[in-house]
């Protein structure tokens, strides 16, 4: 089975099983990963599922598009590899994916 690792701001690692087709936000919430809220339920309308994709994975996973920018652009912890996890549909190639969490969700 494939996994994703969420690394908290303090460096704590949490692994969760990946489920193809689900959103990364849903996976975090279902596995009670602390630091991902997902308040709007995946509508790209709250910004509380902010994650920062590990450098090695950016090419595979892709960067944020205009829809995500609506909620990301104003975030003080925004980084070039920032994404809204709810807009990341898990693919079969993502086994071993690593994302970091910001210190705060907005």
């Amino acid at each position, binding site marked *: 089975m494939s996994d994703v690792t969420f690394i908290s701001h303090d460096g704590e690692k949490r692994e969760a099983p990946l489920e193809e087709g689900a959103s990364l936000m849903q996976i975090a919430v279902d596995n009670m990963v602390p630091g991902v809220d997902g308040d709007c339920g995946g509508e790209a*309308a709250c*910004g509380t599922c902010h994650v920062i994709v590990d450098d090695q994975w950016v090419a595979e996973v892709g960067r944020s598009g205009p829809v995500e920018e609506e909620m990301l652009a104003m975030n003080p912890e925004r980084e070039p590899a920032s994404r809204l996890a709810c807009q990341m549909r898990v693919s079969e190639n993502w086994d071993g994916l690593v994302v970091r969490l910001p210190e*705060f969700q907005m």
Partner: protein
Amino acid sequence: MTTLTTVTDAVTERVQFVVPMQMQIRGAHLYDKTRRFVTRTNGQKIFVEEPIPPVEEVALADIDLSNPFLYRQGRWQEYFERVRNEAPVHFQAKSPFGPFWSVTRHADIVAVDKDHETFSAEPFIIIGEPPRFMDVAMFIAMDPPKHDRQRAAVQGVVAPKNLREMEGLIRSRVQEVLDDLPIGEPFNWVDRVSIELTARMLATLLDFPYEERRKLVEWSDLASSMEQANGGPSDNDEVFRGFVDAARGLSALWRDKEARLAAGEEPGFDLITMLQSNEDTKDLIDRPMEFLGNLTLLIVGGNDTTRNSMSGGVLALNRFPDQFEKLKANPDLIPNMVSEIIRWQTPLAYMRRVAKKDTMLNGQFIRKGDKLVMWYASGNRDERVFDRPDDLIIDRRNARNHISFGFGVHRCMGNRLAEMQLRILWEELLPRFDKIEVVDEPEYVQSNFVRGISRLMVQLTPKTDA
């Protein structure tokens, strides 16, 4: 006391500056008086309270959700439920505020709220039209990109990083208030706790003279209870006087802060310091309407919203006493309960939008220029999203999906502050009191916008150490 005198001095010294701002407001007042005279609303109350009939007795098309007494009379649940189920995007053609669409389901509200390309927050976010002075520039009623620039300048003050700095101070101020409460005798929770704590929090945010903190509440209450804007009870002349007073007080605050910083005082983590140390906003005071707009938005935004969540939480836990027991048995539920209280109370009933182009919404044709009201109060009770939506369930799994903070680019900027404030309140209440009993029927505010509790008589029983 020193701050107080300095502020007063600063006021006198800055007459040259203050006068133009006040003149602007006075000019607006005069304009508004004339307009009201012409439209024949001058001196007459637009809204007189009458009993609202049960929803079954009203034809669907006649349902007017803008009635400012719907909440007070406890009819709002049945009205919204019917509209949600029978006409989720509902048209009211002839309300006192003109024709408007009501958007009542959770999913439709999210769709509208996040689509600022189609639905504009300009010029106002309340159903009616405030008197002219509210032309002060508030970014809650601006579309991107202007909105983004303005929000960027102030959001730092309530960003989680800054809140961490403020938490200790806010907690000690909560403790003072709670330690001072009468025991074993009824008192008005709204005044002694909700208003007092909110005033302290706002004074902390703004570094406003602490002894004068109730002024912030007074100004904000006037601004949010305007009859023409949302069916509230306040008289325009009163509003204008309050606003002149606010303009004077807030500019004095700015000048005083400038002087203190220049004299070498450590910069604080308050809003004014933040604005003064940002390149884009350090001269904000030279743009009076923008200056006032940004400050009033924070004061108004943070005022009756948190206040009514503090009162609403106590009321809800009395209506659902098993939940209070659950809470006492497991205080770790506080953070989730805070979200659930904010859902249950929905302090702001709605935000308004205007369609920028013809569009379809859940099967209804919306024409360019139509007004739409996103009823958060209804979305939070949508049975499609929330199980037993009218109940307070403090460990509700999806409590955080509530819509009380709105969604999209305007999503509440103060959400984390509000959550923190409420969390601290309950963290401090639980170890002190065994019972927090509501001993009389609450009284509610007249408004279609603010879902407010004006009086909540409560009696406390202290915890006896087991």
